[in-house]
């Protein structure tokens, strides 16, 4: 049962990832694309954690943690770039 639900979850997060990708492609402006990137990072964390649960390795969770910890930095940097131009001022 747990296996099945994990696979279903995996499929749905994958689907979300694809949809975020679509948003990224169609835009229409940079703000949407940045949000799409951020969503994709979140989804990637989800994918990794689900994968870790399915295949039973803890190594996966560490990458998820690093993603969670550092993934937002790129988003923030790009957002700063759009807002201010200079990201370190």
């Amino acid at each position, binding site marked *: 049962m747990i296996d099945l639900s994990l696979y279903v979850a995996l499929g749905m997060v994958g689907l979300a990832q*694809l949809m975020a990708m679509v948003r990224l492609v169609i835009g229409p402006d940079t703000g949407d694309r940045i949000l799409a990137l951020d969503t994709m990072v979140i989804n*990637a964390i989800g994918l990794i954690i689900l994968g870790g649960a399915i295949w039973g390795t803890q190594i996966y969770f*560490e990458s998820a943690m690093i993603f969670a910890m550092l993934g937002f930095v790129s988003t923030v940097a790009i957002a700063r770039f*759009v807002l*201010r131009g200079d990201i370190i001022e």
Partner: protein
Amino acid sequence: MSLFIIVLLPFLGALLPGLMIRAGRQVCYTTTMLVTGAAAIGLATHAPAILRGETVTAKLDWLPGLGLNANLFLDPLGFMFAALILGIGLLIVAYARYYLSREDNMGEFYVYLLLFQGAMVGIVLSDNILLLLIFWELTSLSSFLLIGYWKHLPEGRQGARMALAVTGMGGLALIGGMLLLGQIAGSYDLTVILERRGQIQDSPLYLPALLLILLGCFTKSAQFPFHFWLPHAMAAPTPVSAYLHSATMVKAGLFLMARLWPVLSGTPEWTALVAGAGLLTMVLGALIAIFKHDLKALLAFSTVSHLGLITFLLGTGTAFGAMAAVFHILNHASFKAALFMSAGIVDHEAHTRDMRRLGGLRKLMPITFSIALLAGLSMAGIPLLNGFLSKEMMLEEATHTTLFGSPMLVTVAATVGALFSAAYSFRLIAHTYFGPERDDYPSHPHDPGAGMWLPPGLLIIPVVVIGLFPALAEPFVKLVTGAVIGNAAELPDAHLKIWHGLVPALWMSVIAVIGGALLLMAFRPLSKAWEAAPRPEAKAIFDDVIAGSVALSRGLTQRLHDGAFTRYAAIMVVTVVAIGAHAWFTGTAGLPTREMLPMTPIAVVAWAMLIAAAAFLVAAHRNRLAVLILMGIIGLMVSVGFNHFSAPDLALTQISVEVVTIILLLLALNFLPNRTPAESGAPRRIRDGVIALSGGAAAAGLIYTILMSDFPLGTISDYHLANSYKGGGGDNVVNVILVDFRGFDTFGEIIVLGIAALVIYALTETLLSSKVRARLLNRGYETEQAGDAHPLMMVVLTRVMMPVVLMVGVYIFLRGHNEPGGGFVAGLVVAIAVVMQYMASGFAWAARRQRYPYHGIIGAGVLVAGLTGIGSWFAGVPFLTSAFGYFRIPPMQEFELATAMGFDLGVFLAVVGAVMLSLESFSRLARRQDTEDSEYAMDIDPSRGAELVPGRAKEEN
């Protein structure tokens, strides 16, 4: 004193004059004298052993695997040269003390001089030919510095460059020749090579080795057709000319020919090349010298001529020739250095070296005159002076030498050379010192203080003493000759005597002296004719050759490497694909031997996204920011992929590298327009598309083949898996490879990384004060800027995250040896933690709180890694061998410590420093004069109450 100390003393001592000059010129001079003097005394302690006929050796294995041993040996030949170098060195140091003016930086001069001295002593004491090559190159470099010492003179700089180009080229040839010689002889130790005469001369590689070695010797010793650099090197201060270009460096080529004489000489090739070049140089150099008006130019060409004479003597390949060569090296060093120094005195006092403006100095400068007279007559070959004796021996040897099938050729050429030589010597004395006194000298000349005339005066003593009592020098000359010829020939049964009877050589000498005097009498018309005659100008030819080769290489590089990235990417891809295709179609690739992995839906999704992102990237490539976002997506998917295919190390690295890359590119994008303009037409785009697709298809095909087939020889990873714990004490193979198996590579890489960061820093530093930056800062933003530069949300978030991220960094670092992680990833993670603060609170705020400069952190990293590597020497194992063990500190569990961790710490520091330095340099570029340095971490801070905005807060205060 150990030979090592003798060689090292000048090098170590070279540090001192540069420091001591701050205490004054006299201190600086005394220190230099002490250094040279100490080395000379060290050499003198070996004199008794050398005179007994013993050889002193000192051995040290350096890189035995390459045949490179730091072995030194001192035999009579080396002793003679070392004594010349250090003895004349002492005189030159003393002379330069008074020669250099107050404007000249004496400390710098002595530093270069000592470096040169050390390199020169190294050449003559080396037992290993590879070690000799290193010193050989060092003399080229240090002489470059010395010739160009007067940096404000264009002649000095050009002369230095020419000397370096010619001798450097010769040095390259010599490296080739020496390697061949070592290959033939089966050893790089001179003492062994000198025993293998038959083996070397029978080898088919003998001729190429000989040609390359002679190329090195001829360029160094200014033999035709490479003689032209020496006169141009005379732009150097006179002490340098006297030291390098008469007594020592130019004799390095002669030394090497003498050193290798036992194994190389005696063949027809040797005689034709060496004796031929020597004879030609002797005559040509002497001819040109006659018509030079500059005292130093005359002496330069006369040096070329005398070097030719010695080369000729070595080239004859007879023991008598070798003996005459040794004797003339000694004699020439004494009288020529004295002449150079006297020319320097004239220049120093009269402020000109042009003989047309001199004359009549005999009475004005009696001491200088006596020195120049004795040395000049010795150079002319007048009896009772030492120059006569060795010149007689040369003429004697010439009558017995047959070259190019003609017995008369050598005799006539040698007589003509001696005649010219006498002529320029007479002219030097007559046109400088005799004749009427003039009243239009640029400065009124008189004899200088003893400090200046004493050094050349001391050199005159051997000129006269050996000239009168040649028997005094005979035992030593024979001893050295014995060392030159080794066991390849018998020591000649000849004696150094003034009177040999009415032999042909005497008549030749008489002809030369009388002819020389006659030539001088007819100087005016001859000089006119010489000036009128067309002559090839060596410097113009040299400049043309250099300009031609520069144009050629520039033409070639410009076509391949014209600054457009598309150009070299295209060239690279086409070349690689072509070579790969050739390999594919001519080689054999096995059929697929592996099963395909099952295709999971989630993998298909990831794969589809990668393709979609890449395709969209191509479509949207003109929008720079969109490209960056898409690159982020691709990086994300790649790191998820790494994770999925059991490469957690790579996944961690990929994630952190992505973040740093995006920050770096955003900093750069700040200076670029948002869109890339379209610059190429359709045909070009189609062409580039074809190239790109073929490159991509080739890479994909290759990877497919590799993934689907087994390696024929097994993979290297099996070895690493089996040995990683045994050899490196770690379970994480990736980390063990980085810090242990390939630790030396990693060491090199962190150095390169540090250099790259420093270069970025240097480039932005240069840009900071340039017009480019002003233009960049003055551009308007394409879109409006938001108001909040340092938003509260971001500041709070990054502060909270900082300790967490740092702790994770420490954790990843510490467990790196056994589980995914290590210094590199940890460095990136920590750098991101710091850069977050820069982004949140601004450059000025963060930089004020950063106490250690990033350059220092890089340096500390390289140092720590290097010291860890060196540490293993103390355990008696090679550089970077790691050791590990298990320890237990009571409250904690048992844990492992490996020396590799120290190394990893170095990697960590270097990565942090390099990443931060490059990011910081970029952001420094964007700062403006009017950027307000915020005192506060955030612009709007509720806790500051009314002082919501920094501007307003200031007004109220």
